[in-house]
């Protein structure tokens, strides 16, 4: 896991408990709104950010969320990274499958984020932690 510098990522929020979920939600939404994304895309990206943050709180206790706007002459996209140094996921394929949950909830968070976003990548190592990277292209 490489360190992410504040200059690279305009948005950086520490996740340290349930009370941080609304903070992530409002900061992320406010930041995404400035990017000029459509209402529906803001809803998608914010929902994805909250899902991943909730997972950190539930399964890894603490972690960090990063966001940045990627711009090329032809395209703009919002990149979202949520990482933790928690227990890791034993079987990633199973975790991103529909309705798999070790927490007794719906088990739709990870597969849902995958559908909400255009790119989705998850790296996890048992005992080391989990990094989820997702990207949404915005018009």
């Amino acid at each position, binding site marked *: 896991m490489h360190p992410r510098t504040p200059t690279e990522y305009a948005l950086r929020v520490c996740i340290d408990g349930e*009370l941080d979920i609304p903070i992530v939600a409002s900061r992320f*939404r406010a930041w995404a709104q400035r990017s000029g994304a459509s209402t*529906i895309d803001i809803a998608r990206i*914010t*929902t994805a950010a909250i*899902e991943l943050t909730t997972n950190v709180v539930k399964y890894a206790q603490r972690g960090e969320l990063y966001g940045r706007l990627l711009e090329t002459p032809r395209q703009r996209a919002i990149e979202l990274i949520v990482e933790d140094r928690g227990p890791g996921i034993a079987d990633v394929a199973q975790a991103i499958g529909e309705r798999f949950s070790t927490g007794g*909830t*719906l088990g739709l968070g990870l597969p*849902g984020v995958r559908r*909400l976003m255009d790119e989705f990548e998850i790296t996890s190592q048992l005992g080391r932690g989990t990094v989820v990277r997702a990207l949404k292209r915005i018009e």
Partner: protein
Amino acid sequence: MLSRHRINARDLELVRASGAELLPRLDEYVEQFYAWLRQEPEFGQYFNDETLLRHVQNMQVEYWKRFFIGVVDDSYVINRRHVGEVHARIGLSVAAYFAAMDISLAMLTDMLPMSDTRYETYRAITKLIHLDTAVVTVSYNHIINEKMAGQAQALTEMSTPVTSVAEDVLMLPVVGLIDSRRAQEILSSVLGRIAETRARVFIIDISGVSVVDTAVANHLIKLTRATRLMGCKALLSGLSPAIAQTIIELGIDVSAIDTHATLRDALEESLRLVGIKLVRSHNE
């Protein structure tokens, strides 16, 4: 914690040795310190009350006596944590606390006699003061978090206004985010009101909710099930197009919930369900 602040046995020894020099002259420090404090606006409030002022001064003397004993153990840390809590509870800012510690450091170390170990002693005292300050800051934080949690709790309690909008019809507008505690609060207050009023229809309006994630959806599904068990039908209203879309993409099955785009639609449906017909009166 000692190693984090790079405090070793030699440092503590120097702190103890300097205590032998400084403690007898602590009155001088106290005098100087209060002269400084008097012109600090934030501390003004403590000077109106003589007994309070005396108490605070005594506490401060105790603080430095303890400091120059030069023993950092559990009880020392607990004592420092307590100091932080007291300061936070009386509403003194962290900034003011830092300023006071810094000026104390300057005043005390200026009183150190010239010697070969003067610089080393100065460093040792500084490190220990920084350790104290770190502990105090953490406990400040703790108090502030407690306060925030308390406020959130108070807000939660205020924000579940389940209202009767027609005979047999209850309504709850939800604003903001629904976390698990709030969901629990909503569930128990809704079920309580249903039992009390024997309502047959319950409308939950989420037009003030900005995000529906899987956790919130799960709470809503549970709420619907629970109300149904009590013989009351739940209607969900106020889903914006963006929220409807994200719910679908998340893959949440909302077929069990009777959803309506607007509160008005839900209200009309609820009246139909309980058999109330609204007619316009024609007053001349």
